[in-house]
């Protein structure tokens, strides 16, 4: 009962181009999912298919354990795709009322959601008079009208100024802390790293990783070191069994362990060799570095 979306072998061809290639993943209630991938990797096409606007070439997906057909299920979903699409000649309140009619939810929440995104004082202004940041915030208000069980966001901060980005991120984080399931597509890695618990990595339409963000980022990490005698440090490290490789970068030695190795243990064994450390830091690869490693492995 906790499965919100189940995708099996979903593919989409545009002519000879395969935009999405046999994707399979499952979205469970309560998690925050990210879809990562460079531009043109099939993120929007994937979302388009599960949102009923792009016809899949093959494969299936089912919402809420397949108990409802897609358009009924979408009434329980909130989604924002790329650019905010509203009727330019209608006011914010009129646009939201139309969404309420489509989703068959009461209109009582319009003001509440407009207040949440800080647009209540502009509710009777026409959509075409809005700035891009305001349009994006209105789209969020619209997606939240039905208190959705899952919120789907496609590049929600695209094209916004830093202030707008901060506002939109703040809103997303607020929603995530309330326990709403979120599916966020983005090519901005730090955005995904900040809010997501799970990640789906796409490249050229292929799924190259699906799982927890922590599983992707926790490898053995690496150490950044410096000592009074940097050459002796490097040769000592190279001689150690638990160290795979070392490199000199930016005045520091970077040491990559091949097993679980604590900073304390490393410091102790180095001291035993007579090395006096002036700097020791244990580091993990960021999602960005992991992502680049993943995509490069695929290309190789």
């Amino acid at each position, binding site marked *: 009962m906790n499965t919100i979306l189940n995708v099996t072998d979903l593919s989409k061809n545009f002519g000879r181009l395969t935009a999405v290639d046999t994707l399979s993943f499952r979205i469970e209630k309560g998690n925050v999912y990210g879809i990562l991938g460079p531009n043109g990797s099939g993120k929007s096409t994937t979302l*388009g298919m599960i*949102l*009923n*606007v*792009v*016809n899949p070439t093959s494969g299936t997906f089912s919402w809420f354990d397949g108990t409802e057909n897609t*358009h*009924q*299920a*979408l*009434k329980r*979903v909130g*989604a924002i*795709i790329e*650019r905010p*699409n*509203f*009727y*330019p*000649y*209608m*006011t914010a309140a*009129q646009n939201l*009322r*139309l*969404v309420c*009619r*489509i*989703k*068959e939810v009461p209109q009582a929440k319009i003001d509440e959601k407009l207040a949440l995104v800080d647009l209540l004082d502009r509710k009777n202004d026409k959509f075409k008079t809005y700035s891009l940041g305001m349009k994006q915030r209105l789209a969020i208000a*619209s997606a939240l009208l039905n208190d959705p069980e899952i919120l789907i966001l496609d590049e929600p901060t695209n094209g916004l100024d830093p202030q707008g980005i901060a506002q939109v991120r703040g809103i997303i984080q607020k929603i995530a802390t309330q326990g709403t399931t979120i599916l966020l597509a983005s090519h901005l890695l730090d955005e995904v790293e900040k809010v997501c618990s799970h990640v789906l990595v796409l490249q050229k339409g292929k799924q190259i990783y699906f799982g927890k963000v922590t599983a992707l980022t926790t490898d053995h990490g690496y150490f950044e070191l410096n000592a009074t005698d940097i050459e002796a440090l490097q040769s000592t490290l190279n001689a150690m069994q638990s160290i795979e490789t070392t490199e000199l970068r930016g005045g520091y030695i970077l040491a990559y362990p091949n097993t679980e190795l604590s900073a304390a243990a490393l410091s102790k064994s180095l001291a035993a060799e007579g090395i006096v450390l002036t700097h020791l830091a244990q580091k993990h690869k960021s999602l960005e570095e992991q992502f680049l490693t993943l995509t490069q492995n695929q290309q190789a």
Partner: protein
Amino acid sequence: MKRLFLIEFDKLRANRSSRILIGAYFILLTSIALIAAIKFDIGPIKFHLAEQGIFNFPYIWHFNAFIGAWFKIFLAVVIVSMTANEYSNKTLKQNLIDGLSKREFLHSKWVMIFAFAGISTLFIFVVSLILGLMYSNYTEISIILKDFEYLLAYFVKHVVFFAFCLFLGTAIKRSAFALGFLGVWQMFEGFCYGMLKWKSPSWVDAEQVFRLFPLNAMSNLIPEPFTRLSAVRNLASQVEVEVIKNTNVQFWDIVIVLVWTFIFYSLTYRLLKRRDL
């Protein structure tokens, strides 16, 4: 049904140009009444159009249905632009994401088609009834109730025409081009008629084939009413031209346009269903 109507009504009501066009349409429909005011009074020549029998029951149903149908292009522009705008504003995509099915979207447009055709028919009925009661020489109930098939033809003619426009708006996605195409199509039908008359083998009845073309079938629904007018008939008999034209609503013409209505509906749905947004 009510939900679909309210969705479409909200979209229409907020759109200023649609409001203006719809307003202009009904003002023009009412202006048929102004024909009654055509009056010449130059010395010995006294001519009052309203007294020439054009407002007599049951002829008035035919006359007003024929004239009133000319103005439907105003509503056609509204339908085409409201449909094309759903594509250019990408609001069709948003509607689908919000949980409207493609079938429901199409039906919300069809509710508008039926509403336009129905209100227009009701309006022409009321205008004709009032004009008739004012100017007709006969106001017996049995005569008033005659020839109602022209109102039925009027309704069907509007539905099929709007269905054609909805299809063009969906297919072409640009209102100006869709309306332009409507004009081109009209010329194309004329061209086909010419070719049929000129080139078709003797066993093909050009008139009967031409009857199947959509715009021609629509215009056949309500034949021109003028040759029915006694004044015109008198004139014709004086110059010894026999008027044998059939000016009734033909059953087969209704069938032909109903088939077209179904074709336009199905093609529009197919387009909606197949296209990626």
